[in-house]
């Protein structure tokens, strides 16, 4: 019996002449007997990962990997007349949750890595109703505010509203006048009160419509 065959036999049965290796093989056998080794991850994990990563799909077109940590040159059509964006920031829902809502995971970036939550979206006659239920996102410091964006895979962003959470973590209601199928990613940025119309480079949360809902 070769050394490899002896090791395999020891792994299988727990016996054999492997004095100097038996401790390591016993550890492997022990690991093979534990539940953690065999537990399957919940399928929604990959959805959450891809939701976070998917928001960066436009970034993958950047010429350099190093550029991914920076905000791409913003081509956002912010406040565009094309995009009829109605802004409502409120801790009061103007519409109740509907089982038919599409719900996507929102994940904090490295700037707010404790933040998590969901975005429920629903088409209405006047645009898309978007409700953010977030936890762990710090209130925006004085002089700043959060801004929600929907983002296309072509790198075009449209503002969907602002909020600051300084009154607590209640749900945030936003509206998009553009189709979520065309703008499948939702980003939240931290903005300075400097009047700039463009998105800042401080992306704090991201999420993306499931592929079967997006175009």
């Amino acid at each position, binding site marked *: 019996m070769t050394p490899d065959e002896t090791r395999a036999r020891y792994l*299988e049965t727990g016996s054999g002449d492997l004095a100097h290796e038996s401790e390591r093989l016993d550890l*492997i056998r022990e690991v093979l007997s534990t539940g953690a080794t065999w537990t399957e*991850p919940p399928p929604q994990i990959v959805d959450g990962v*891809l939701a976070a990563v998917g928001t960066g799909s436009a970034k993958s077109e950047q010429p350099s990997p190093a550029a*991914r940590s920076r905000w791409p040159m913003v081509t956002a059509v912010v406040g565009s007349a094309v995009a009829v964006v109605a802004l409502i920031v409120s801790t009061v829902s103007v519409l109740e949750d509907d089982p038919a809502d599409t719900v996507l995971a929102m994940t904090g970036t490295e700037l707010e890595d404790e933040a998590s939550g969901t975005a429920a979206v629903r088409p209405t006659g006047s645009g898309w109703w978007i409700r953010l239920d977030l936890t762990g996102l710090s209130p925006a410091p004085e002089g700043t505010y959060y801004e929600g964006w929907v983002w296309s895979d072509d790198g075009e962003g449209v503002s969907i509203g602002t909020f600051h959470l300084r009154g607590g973590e209640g749900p945030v209601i936003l509206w998009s006048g553009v189709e979520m199928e065309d703008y499948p990613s939702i980003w939240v940025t931290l903005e300075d009160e400097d009047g700039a119309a463009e998105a800042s480079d401080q992306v704090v949360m991201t999420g993306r419509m499931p592929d079967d809902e997006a175009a």
Partner: protein
Amino acid sequence: MDPEVLERFRIGDEAAVKAVYDRYGGPVFALSMSILGDHGLAADATQQTFIKAWRAASTYDPERSFAPWVYAIARRTAIDIYRKHSRSVSSDDVDIAVFPPGLETAWEVFEVRSAVDRLPDQERQVVKLSHFDGLTHVEIAAQLDIPVGTVKSRSHRAHQRLSEFLRHVEEA
């Protein structure tokens, strides 16, 4: 992993991230379970690990093995969650520098899970029934409704593969 996949992962390609998750999702989740002992916390740790890995992908050196790199992120993430959770459930104000009980074997759990995930399904099933469920070959044969000889041959092949996949762990 295919170097091309890793290169695409480095530039944030979504399909490559999915491929990396398919390969390492199980080992990262197993590692997280061994450290955290809680399905929900392990799920959080696993998701955070892959998002962090994607964000840090440009720092990955393709000349080096990918598994230890993602393992290091997973281990650190699980420890952070363990500490935060320990503090949140603590009944006193003492902030103890806690270390999870499963930390010492975390690398072995990661490697063993990686190895069993590489086994053909039929062999993986036999290994699980044997080691985790503690069944004999005869009992496995009865449960799977296959001849005992088939169980023995699958078990033999599976352990040969595991021995090969885990040789570096055995020799560590």
